[in-house]
């Protein structure tokens, strides 16, 4: 008696209706070759299911995290000033809630709509901000200032990149790293995710102290 493989497969998966299950089970009892085929189908599923499972446990490369969180097509239009304003606006929107509500920023309530907690914002403004280390200032595409910061605590370091919009400092990307070997990671260490994001935002080298001071004096506006 010949039964289609699709039916045998559904039997092996336990997805046949009960009446069918009984019918097939009776046929299998009477036909060892059929039973063998069902066993192969079940084995095949089990073998396939485990394949590449370890990929899930690997850290996701920084370039992929950056690709998934970048504003669309920034790189493609870097040389086109006409598009810059629009891109900056798009980037500003993206800043919105990305990772913000889920970011485990120590010592603060969940930031609202991607705006950073007051303590971090104060540090980014350049007016203190305890426990927050500002690690560099960049001028991104479209004339937007972005600053890299780190917040070390006993469990590790949160590193982030925030960009300034009219409402305040918005989080662009943040990375939490646990402390290795019981010691803090250096606060200024370049995180590849943040480096990728800077690249995608069209930011050049970090500003020197003079340029940074001037930007701060202008309230982080280009002019």
């Amino acid at each position: 008696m010949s039964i289609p493989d699709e039916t045998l497969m559904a039997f092996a998966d336990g997805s046949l209706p009960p009446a069918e299950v009984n019918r097939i089970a009776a046929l299998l009892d009477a036909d060892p070759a059929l039973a063998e085929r069902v066993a192969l189908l079940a084995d095949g599923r089990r073998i396939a299911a485990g394949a590449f499972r370890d990929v899930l446990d690997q850290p996701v490369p920084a370039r992929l995290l950056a690709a998934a969180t970048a504003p669309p097509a920034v790189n493609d239009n870097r040389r086109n000033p006409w598009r810059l304003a629009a891109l900056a606006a798009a980037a500003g929107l993206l800043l919105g809630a990305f990772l913000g509500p889920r970011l485990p920023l120590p010592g603060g309530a969940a930031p609202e709509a991607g705006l950073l907690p007051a303590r971090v914002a104060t540090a980014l403004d350049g007016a203190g901000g305890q426990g927050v280390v500002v690690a560099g200032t960049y001028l991104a595409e479209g004339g937007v200032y972005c600053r890299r910061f780190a917040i070390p605590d006993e469990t590790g370091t949160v590193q982030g990149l925030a960009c300034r919009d009219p409402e305040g400092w918005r989080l662009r990307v943040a990375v939490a790293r646990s402390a290795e070997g019981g010691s803090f990671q250096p606060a200024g260490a370049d995180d590849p995710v943040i480096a990728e994001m800077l690249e995608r935002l069209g930011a050049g080298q970090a500003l020197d102290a003079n340029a940074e001071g001037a930007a701060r004096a202008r309230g982080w506006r280009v002019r």
Partner: protein
Amino acid sequence: MSTFQTDLVALLPRLRRFAQALCGRPDQADDLVQEACERALRSQDGFTPGTRFDSWMFRILRNLWLDSHRRRAARGGVHETLDDAESIPGADGASVTMNLLDLRDAERALLRLPHDQREALVLTCIEDLTYAEAAAVLGVPPGTVMSRAARGRIALAKALGESDR
């Protein structure tokens, strides 16, 4: 807006697994994932809220994979099919061999399957999509997915059964 990106970030590990199961080369797989992310962000409007986001991303990635094979075949003038692509040494022939050697038996056997069986298996057995969902990703009827998956499962079981003896 940002929900889209947080969903995309959360899906990255599965996209990487899916891409590696399709093409077998970790570096090439990550290139595919990156390209898929960029394309997805450009065409967010094409995603219907309330439908499966993972299926939508799998479809984008799988189509990019097919495209890259077609481009490579056309450029090289090689009669390369998806099925024997893994065994053709390219400029990166050495590293390809290394990668394949590192793969465990099941993964190696999976990568030796004809591509249509492989993608049906990967979607239904690794990613646990239903036959109907896998059919939507692949653009073929559910019955076709079922028969390809059945053939793939039997081939896989036989391949590993023989190597055990």
